[in-house]
């Protein structure tokens, strides 16, 4: 049997429904659509809440099936329309039907009430629907009489009384779903981070091969192997640093930016080589000399490592023989030096760029989410913080390539542009 949401979530929702049912003295059901089918959970059976009229119908042959089908139909309609409002059941009883919407996605539909409304026109509608039900259920005279009597005993609210309840439960349910969503994202995030860390640890453990083959290895191969361990450990350090607050003090000193970029290239060089990616660094000189900026080296190194790694990791694979590159270009722009990281890769959507979502903590690009689930959602957030602290800016551009040029898929040309001031005193703090 299908279960609505996961078990701990189901327990929480059950508790929410029970509390509401007891407080409002009204029964309540919650439907979720799963694999095209509606499944529901309901406030616990309590004779004082569920109307005798409804219980009687449900005990009749086909009665329960008719009630279930009708509730599902109304839940489905509310989900499609996305509107809250009063709905009349197949037997003439009113419910309030409210879709629970989170980020534009309908998570479930609440149905609660089981009552008649006091207004004359509503009473009339109820009675008409009741008579149709009597006929559909094929009741004899005695059963019909009994049912009509039970309908008359069903509790009556005025529309205004009912309105007071309307706002409560859907908002509480939204909060529950929001909480589940946050928890789900948190768990997914831990999983992604674990995957990133374990992949890096794996590459370090692979150094066991150096021991296994020690007697056969030449000096050069040993040296290369040791370099690979160090690079893997540095790549791991970059991932770990993204996770926590990097508490080291910012110490600004004039540095050659080229040195930091070469360092990043070294760390991810083996990975890039195995992927067949060329990493080119081309920085235009400033006054005939290699550019020197006032930076906090440790912080900026980690930020550049992140940008380098992203460019390599999300690089478009393409068909065999397809040119793969990460191009880093730099040039002076007034009191700033601008560094652009370019590659063909998985695109970033317009709204993600406009709202700068890709720089938010725990955010994973919508296109990369389907393609690679292992981004930690921490790297670019960290990068932005470091760049801001340097009174610089970071922006991203994404342009889809034509099918003519890339028949095997349409990668985007991705460009991250970092602008850093030459001197920290040159500029006022920037957004």
């Amino acid at each position: 049997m299908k279960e609505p949401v996961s078990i701990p979530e189901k327990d929480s929702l059950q508790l929410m429904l029970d509390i509401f049912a007891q407080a409002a003295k009204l029964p309540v059901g919650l439907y979720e659509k799963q694999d095209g089918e509606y499944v529901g959970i309901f406030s616990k059976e309590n004779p004082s809440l569920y109307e005798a009229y409804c219980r009687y119908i449900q005990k009749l042959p086909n009665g329960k099936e008719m009630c279930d089908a009708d509730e599902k139909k109304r839940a489905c309609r509310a989900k499609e329309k996305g509107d809250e409002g009063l709905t009349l059941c197949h037997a003439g009883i009113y419910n309030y039907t409210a879709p629970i919407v989170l980020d534009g996605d309908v998570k479930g539909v609440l149905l609660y009430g089981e009552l008649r409304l006091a207004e004359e026109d509503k009473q009339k509608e109820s009675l008409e629907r009741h008579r149709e039900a009597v006929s559909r259920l094929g009741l004899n005279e005695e059963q019909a009489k009994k049912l009509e009597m039970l309908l008359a005993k069903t509790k009556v609210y005025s529309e205004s009384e009912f309105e007071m309840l309307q706002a409560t439960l859907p908002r509480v349910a939204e909060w529950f779903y929001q909480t589940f969503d946050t928890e789900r994202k948190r768990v997914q995030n831990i999983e992604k981070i674990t995957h990133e860390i374990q992949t890096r640890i794996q590459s370090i453990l692979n150094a066991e091969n150096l021991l296994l083959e020690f007697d056969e290895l030449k000096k050069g191969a040993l040296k290369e192997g040791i370099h690979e361990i160090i690079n893997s450990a540095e790549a791991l350090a970059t991932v770990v640093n993204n996770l926590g607050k990097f508490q080291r003090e910012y110490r600004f000193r004039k540095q050659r930016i080229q040195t930091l970029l070469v360092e990043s290239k070294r760390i991810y060089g083996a990975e890039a080589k195995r992927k067949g990616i060329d990493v080119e660094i081309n920085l235009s000189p400033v006054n005939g000399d290699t550019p020197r900026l006032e930076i906090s080296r440790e912080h900026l190194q980690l930020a550049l490592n992140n940008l380098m790694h992203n460019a390599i990791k999300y690089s478009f694979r393409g068909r065999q023989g397809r040119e793969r590159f990460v191009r880093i270009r730099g040039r002076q722009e007034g009191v700033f030096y601008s560094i652009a990281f370019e590659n063909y890769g998985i695109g970033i959507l317009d709204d993600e760029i406009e709202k700068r979502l890709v720089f938010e903590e725990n955010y994973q690009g919508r296109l990369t989410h389907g393609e690679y689930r292992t981004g930690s959602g921490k790297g670019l957030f960290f990068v932005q913080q470091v760049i801001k602290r340097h009174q610089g800016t970071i922006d991203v551009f994404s342009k889809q390539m034509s099918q003519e040029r890339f028949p095997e898929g349409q990668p985007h040309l991705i460009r991250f542009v970092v602008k850093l001031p030459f001197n920290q005193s040159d500029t006022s703090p920037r957004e």
Partner: protein
Amino acid sequence: MKKIAWIEDDTDIIDLVVRPLERSGYQITRFHTIKEALDNMESIRQCDLVLLDLIIPPGDTDEKFGDYPGIYLLRTFRQAYQMKQPVIVLSVVADLKTFDELKEMDAVVENKPILPSKLKLLVDEVLGIEE
């Protein structure tokens, strides 16, 4: 010579984990995406063993394969292709439900990271090869 199909997207980073296997004569074919694996099912079927990661990109396809695309692939092996050869899932398995599902499909589950020598021992053991 025993053949292994290795379905893993991070071979660029962790390729050396299979080096002891290759050095002892195993022939390893690498597949980086679900699509690549699905397009090469006949070749995978010829392998003696499959090494499978659970979190792999779909590749050039719009199809969705769920949170753990590797499970989709394993199901396809077992159900659609009736493949009976041993499968070692080399991955991070976070929840019990996923673990149970893998066991039901007769997979050997091993967590990453693993020492290359241990992976070789595990493969030998699963294939019944004595040292």
